[in-house]
């Protein structure tokens, strides 16, 4: 890990596009992740008028761009051995590719065509609409994924909890010109980040980025108006075999100095198999197959999300044990060996990330978005090493004063604690 500092470089193009590169000596592959400030949160619609411009546009740009029609574009990516994805998220639209190092430049050229020169043929929109509507229906058939989408939507103020999948009303109604307007406002270099990692020559990538993206004109960022959401207690009736349970607690955001504490609390509660939720809910009581907590961190807001699924007749006990464990963590704090275990897991994760160019490229872009810089791995390790049993316990104590969003999905509602 000692040499990682020198391998990370960044360069800001005149139009605002940020390039962050990391050379990885042990891999033959290379990968890039491009984040565009074009997530679902930047759609002009709302939950009533309908959403889905981000996901439909992300699909549209791959259906022919630059000199290639849709078939040639996918064939050329295949021939470059490029595993690729173009996806909308809440905050960004992401284009990601992993391939052999020698093919990365050619894949980046295709990416530039998709971002800057997509064909956007009208006739492609109805097939995309049909595809996106079906994806929404498939999401309805996946209770474990559905409940997390619905939880985030209720917990974060709109637009920050929007599902990237859009809404059926929005996807059904959006016209090609509305999608074009969404793209021209939000596919912009100022606010975009390109993370590149793996077997690369940083100088070559920098020159290529200038050549491909240097003439891309910036656009003014759009104002985003926040609206409160909710309800904080809710149930979605569904005839399922298992009742889904999901909780969201406000947490220190990813740019805050307390983010290390927030991540530590979430990991110690439910980040691995010796963590408290797995131990108490599954190992000791056999109440569920899956139970976890995870830190969902954006730059300006974050949550700790907990999720479990259990048969309806045992779901109440599952929820009660989860809430009881969170209360115990807040009240009693953590033990020194829990802190050590959390650090050991983190140390492994940081070192093993060096084996995957795609996860490093995503981390480079994500770090830049949250912090405006990339943390060397030593700095992340030092941030966690600086935590103490007392500091984590004090941070966990705040959970007692936070009112969670609680959502269940299943045949019958559960008894939820009253809203504070």
């Amino acid at each position, binding site marked *: 890990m000692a040499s990682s500092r020198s391998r990370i470089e960044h360069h800001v193009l005149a139009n605002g596009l940020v390039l962050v590169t990391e050379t990885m000596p042990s891999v033959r592959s290379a990968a890039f992740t491009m984040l565009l400030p074009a997530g679902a949160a930047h759609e002009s619609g709302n939950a009533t008028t309908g959403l889905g411009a981000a996901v439909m546009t992300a699909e549209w740009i791959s259906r022919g761009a630059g000199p290639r029609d849709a078939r040639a574009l996918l*064939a050329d990516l*295949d021939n470059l051995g490029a595993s690729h994805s173009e996806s909308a998220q809440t905050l960004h639209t992401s284009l990601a590719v992993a391939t052999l190092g020698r093919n990365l430049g050619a894949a980046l050229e295709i990416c530039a065509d998709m971002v800057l020169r997509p064909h956007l043929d009208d006739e492609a929109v109805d097939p995309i609409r049909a595809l996106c509507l079906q994806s929404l229906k498939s999401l309805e058939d996946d209770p474990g994924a559905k409940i997390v989408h619905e939880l985030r939507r209720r917990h974060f103020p709109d637009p920050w909890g929007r599902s990237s999948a859009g809404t059926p009303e929005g996807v059904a109604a959006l016209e090609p010109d509305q999608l074009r307007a969404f793209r021209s406002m939000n596919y912009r270099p100022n606010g975009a980040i390109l993370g590149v990692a793996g077997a690369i020559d940083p100088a070559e990538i920098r020159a290529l980025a200038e050549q491909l993206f240097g003439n891309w004109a910036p656009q003014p960022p759009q104002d985003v108006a926040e609206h409160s959401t909710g309800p904080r207690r809710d149930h979605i009736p569904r005839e399922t075999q298992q009742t889904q349970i999901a909780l969201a607690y406000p947490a220190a955001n990813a740019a805050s100095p307390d983010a290390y504490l927030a991540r530590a609390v979430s990991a110690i509660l439910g980040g691995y198999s010796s963590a408290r939720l797995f131990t108490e809910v599954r*190992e000791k009581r056999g109440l569920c197959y899956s139970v976890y907590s995870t830190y969902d961190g954006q730059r300006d807001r974050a949550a700790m999300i907990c999720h479990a*699924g259990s048969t309806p007749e045992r779901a109440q006990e599952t929820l009660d044990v989860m809430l009881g464990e969170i209360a115990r963590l807040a009240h009693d704090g953590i033990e020194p060996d829990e802190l050590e275990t959390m650090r050991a897991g983190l*140390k492994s994760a940081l*070192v093993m990330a060096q084996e995957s160019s795609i996860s490093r490229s995503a981390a480079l872009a994500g770090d830049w978005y949250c912090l405006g810089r990339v943390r060397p791995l030593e700095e992340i390790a030092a941030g966690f090493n600086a935590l103490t049993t007392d500091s984590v316990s004090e941070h966990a104590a705040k959970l007692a004063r936070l009112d969670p969003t609680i959502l269940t999905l299943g045949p019958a509602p559960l008894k939820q604690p009253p809203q504070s």
Partner: protein
Amino acid sequence: MPFHHETLENGLEIVAELDDRAYSVAAGFFVKTGSRDETRDLAGVSHFLEHMTFKGTPRRDALAVNRDFDKVGARHNAQTSEEDTLYYVSCLPEYLDPAFDVLADILRPSLREDDFQTEKQVIIEEIRMYLDNPMSVAYEAAKSAHFREHPLGNSILGTVESIEALSADQMRAYFQNRYSPSNIVLAFAGASSWAETLELAQRRCGSWEGPPANRFLSPAAGTRQFQSIKRPEDHQQTIVGVSDAPPLESNLRHAASLLAAILGDHTGSRLYWSLIDPGRADGAELTYQDYNQAGAFYTFLSCEPESVVENLKTIAEVYRPGVNLDLSELELAQAKNKVLARAVLRGERPMGRLATLGFHWMYHRKYQSVEDELELYSKVTREDVEHVHAQWPLWPPTIASVGPLTHSAPKC
């Protein structure tokens, strides 16, 4: 990359592909047992046993197993398939000794009665979780109908009833018969030395005992049955098709993989252009699964209920029964480039290499490097792919259709 292998006196085989440049090391026990080795009264025991190993040993209870893995930051898990149970760990090289201590320890579990009863509830939760997933329901139904009496059609998880009826004694007897050292391959991949891995294996596994285990290998031939399962609450219709394919012993398996990629990869394949690109389905794939002396092509489709009949007709056209594929060199090259790059990317991480290394040794008794694998794919010709397509007809497959619509078998 240096490769080593050794067989301990008790029959346990050890293979290792070591790489100084890796940041981590992975270890895995590949136990040659799965749902196909179960009798009807034991349905689900292989998978339940996989869970029970983590519930403790004479040296550790369940909480200590989890704690001892986690305190060295070791990523650990296990998986059970029709024919194998794999236990694996990956960790930083300096923690291989303590992490492997736990992994080897749990392969000789206590199988205590109270743990058995608690974990039974977890297994039932897992079964019910998958009952909420239409693709899992369709997959189980299609596999069961396709293989009918053949044990490859057995459910990996079992049913709520079979799990409730199972006793700890039945599981202990199954363990005695199937977890013999001679029925297990131990593989290491990544940053370690042969001296270290061999010493660990001898120290932790040298005293293991057990009788030789057999697998009953009968020929499998699919039934091509059709069934429709109504789930009125579902929004989409979900279809799984199964047809016979070359077995893992066949030298046609790379051609079979490429055939599946050409016709049904999730992107850029013939199914993609016929069904996904025009927005007629949100999932359409063909995959190849090889088994010990058997093989299967699996077709997956997710679409609106009202388009299912028409979409199945399109799949039949894409599969071109009885006619050649009209395959161009360009199309084959594209599939190869895609499959080869995925093999390289997967092989970059010790965890990615581990499964390939262990399974290949178990069934082929041979080492295959990433370069060897690339070479085997590169050598496949259009004629090979056409040959697989002609010899192993994809259409009509055994079909399970799950969703709000009940319909009849496609007429094509």
